[in-house]
């Protein structure tokens, strides 16, 4: 169960600010889109399993379609050939959307400092949370998701319309 946000309550009503409620609702129902390429994908599978259950944080349903998911979990090495495909998947997601880069390869290219590997997915899409590790333990991935939950809860509702966000999207070439 989650804690109620601060507000006035009375007989049959509860008044609080809108963004608190929306933040609460969003953070506790983040539907993940796994984009698992290699070994970190297996760690992600372990996170989804019964032992390190991710479903208790609201990520019960993992739609493998970008149209219905909130957060894109990129786990594994992304090659330069895969870059445009990852970008396409990100573009197909509906707002609000967040990205978690799981593992060293997704964050910075990892140990594969070589010509075919994309040195970090932030060269093609904007990333919100980076989870380092090779591979990160499931507890690490859970920690990353919890940090994202903090981000989601405290995000202002007008964030997607702000100048800073627009500039960020512009720098990636995303409309």
């Amino acid at each position, binding site marked *: 169960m989650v804690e109620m946000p601060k507000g006035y309550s009375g007989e049959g009503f509860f008044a609080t600010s809108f963004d608190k409620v929306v933040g609460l609702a969003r953070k506790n129902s983040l539907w993940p889109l796994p984009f698992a390429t290699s070994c970190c994908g297996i760690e992600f599978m372990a996170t989804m399993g019964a032992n390190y259950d991710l479903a208790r944080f609201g990520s019960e349903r993992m739609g493998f379609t970008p149209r219905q998911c909130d957060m894109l979990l990129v786990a594994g090495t992304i090659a330069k*050939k895969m870059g445009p495909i990852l970008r396409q998947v990100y573009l197909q997601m509906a707002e609000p959307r967040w990205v978690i880069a799981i593992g060293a390869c997704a964050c910075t290219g990892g140990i594969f*400092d070589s010509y*075919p590997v994309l*040195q970090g997915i932030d060269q093609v899409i904007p990333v919100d949370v980076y989870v380092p590790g090779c591979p990160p333990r499931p507890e690490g991935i859970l920690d990353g998701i919890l940090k994202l939950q903090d981000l989601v809860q405290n995000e202002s509702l007008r964030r997607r319309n702000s100048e800073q966000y627009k500039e960020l999207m512009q720098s990636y070439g995303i409309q």
Partner: protein
Amino acid sequence: MLFELIMALTKEIIKERLTEKFGEQLTEWAEPYGMLTFTAPAEMNLKVMQFLYDDETLRFRFLTDLTGAHFPDRKGEELSVIYHLHSLENNIRLRMKVYTPIEKPDVFTATQLFAGANWMERETYDFFGVNFVGHPNLIRILNVDEMDYFPMRKEYPMEDPTRIDKDDEMFGRGGTVV
């Protein structure tokens, strides 16, 4: 026929039959780790493989591997294509190497004989630049299509060239720590 079934195929027999047919054109006979290896001239690669395929005692009808290598010190024959052949009925493996100059690396394609050579030759083209004459679709297979160089050649480094944040000192190159 019965006599051949009793006598198992050995490396000596293979070598004998090959030199009988091709003579001095096959060179550099060796047996690294027990696998018989020889070198053939680049124009003859199909003839040798066809002979190994058709011959009733040899029966090398399975192409295990097709790969390339770059030897910058072998002037005039820098790029090599290496074929690993296997005779399933006799359980014997064979390695055939061909060398070709880097200015004009033309090698006849093995796709007519072995369908599996198709993608393997594309990979060899992608990484070394060996031009397989007669290949149905010789384009890059593993690298990005816009790449304009052949990465596995010795002059190109393994590392990604677009990184700007690498600290040379940490990699043992220059800097203040020798």
